[in-house]
């Protein structure tokens, strides 16, 4: 088995989309190949599968945790030294609300960022075949190909308009 990367020029996005169609006709489902681009393209522009994620769950988890920690810290610190001042209640709810608000938002933000990394599958230092030309505008199609089909798939990509095809064993 080898990893293959077909590179299409920036202005040939349509050729890249045609290549994914040709790959599907050759028996590779859209779960077998991946598109690499240097900038975001509209979802499904190259016939790739829809991206599903659960990022929206993360801020809620973080918010709940942040709120709980903030209430615990502010409540417990006041209860730990129960000094009545001016006949006011020991637990000052308005003041606790302010810190709890910040704690909630901090938790939500931290968990969102963790979620972004987790759902983006980052960090991933050994992510597979790649070419620096991707960030210069080239559109890449990567897939894993059996040795005996290497030539056929390479020809398929070139016929579709690939400017270059790289193979990594």
């Amino acid at each position, binding site marked *: 088995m080898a990893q293959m990367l077909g590179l299409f020029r920036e202005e040939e996005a349509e050729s890249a989309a045609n290549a994914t169609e040709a790959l599907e006709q050759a028996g590779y489902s859209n779960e077998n190949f991946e598109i690499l681009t240097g*900038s975001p393209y509209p979802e499904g522009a190259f016939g790739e599968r829809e991206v599903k994620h659960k990022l929206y769950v993360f801020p809620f988890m973080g918010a709940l945790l942040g709120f709980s920690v903030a209430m615990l810290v502010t409540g417990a*610190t006041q209860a730990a030294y129960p000094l009545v001042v001016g006949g006011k209640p020991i637990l000052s709810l308005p003041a606790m609300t*302010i810190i709890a608000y910040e704690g909630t*938002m901090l938790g939500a*933000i931290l968990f969102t960022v963790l979620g972004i990394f987790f*759902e983006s599958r980052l960090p991933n*230092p050994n992510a597979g075949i790649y070419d*620096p030309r991707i*960030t210069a505008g080239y559109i890449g199609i990567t897939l894993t190909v059996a040795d005996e089909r290497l030539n056929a798939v390479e020809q398929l990509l070139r016929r579709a308009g690939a400017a270059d095809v790289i193979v990594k064993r």
Partner: protein
Amino acid sequence: MQQRVVLPQPQVNAELLKNALRAPLWYWGIMAFLGAIVVAGSVAVGFLMNKGFGLSGTNRPVMWGILIVDFVFWIGISHAGVMLSAILRLSKAEWRRPATRAAEVLTVFSLMIAALHPVVHAGRPWRIIYWSFPYDFSRGLWVNIRSPLIWDPSAIFTYLTGSALFVIVALIPDMAVIRDHTTGLKQKVYRALAMGWRGTPRQWKLQIVAGFLLSALLLPVFVSVHSIVSWDFAVMIGVEGYHVTIFAPYFVIGAVHSGVSAVVTMMILMKWMFGWGSYIREEHVESLAKLLIVIGTTWLYFFFVEFSFALYSMESQEIALREMQAFTWPYWPLALTFILFSYIIPIPLWLFRKVRRNFKIMFWTSLLVNIGMWLERFLIIVPSLARKQVWPFDWSTYHPSAIEVLIVVTAYALVFLLLMTFAKLFPLIPLFDIKEGQTLSDDIVIGKRRVPALRVEE
């Protein structure tokens, strides 16, 4: 009408990474100049700590001087970034693309510098630990969470953490671009920072969703931060001029006014310094000026309400304070300059399209707004304390000392130095955002005209 310059991706990379990959000689000259000011300022801070805060101009009853004024000012500037970036992102405003990164980075650095001011003002900064963190475990004493001086660090910490993470997340694709355009040790560093980014549809989708989600989360935080800063003053029931219920929205809108003006100043400087005329165009500055007309006028409304409600109270002490702010030396020239610079000169000028599209006039007028807004904070903080007590023998005034002035100047130099350092390491305009704009751009023909259009994502 929007102009459009469609550029191939290699050209976008080359132009926007020009400074990060190979900085010109003038860049190092500016860095050396700013570095010298920062060194001088650091010496001043060291001297102040060694000899004591008596070297500042603060004295009873004016115990808050220009360091606190500057603290409020920089917190205000920090509001531009996320507010601008978040609102424009959420509303999918096309002209946001070259402005977002600079605004977000300005937020992070100005917040960092703002947070330094109270630390220096404390005189003995190590005691901040004593006030802000639980202490004296043996007696079970804890910080007083009823104090706004505890709300403040919690809000600033949340905002600073969130804004910094916002910048870092959006930087990952651009770090991959630098990784692919460098060699040797530099490449190794950027390879580690890019964390294996390849530009898969999943990564791009998460990047776009992250932009929206973090924007939505940071917007309420940004409102809370300056509200809480305003409560540092507003909850002081004993100080006329501070104890105002409208302070929270008044401070927030004032912060947005000065912050967005600072973004305009910064964008024009970036255009001039790095030659980014293809990216920072007249239409961008014009759109920001239109936004500023609305923001500035809303701010004026709050200013008017705050001032007139104070007079409407018919309290002799309150009226005396307002008279002092507006008519008594040395405050009246400051008050006049403040209102002229922050509204009367810039806003009517920005009503004219030619002015809005003129970089030079926009640069100077946006700078005027920030001079005016700095004076506004001075006029809120200092005169109110000068007349804090009822009896005239307790009245006094305040003159900043040379050391305080040097520290304030250093704060400006430090923010600029940090921004320039950032510009050497990372692109100040988000590459992928610009490229996405180019990908989605299109022209349509209506009658005999060809006009720009945009394919909008669902």
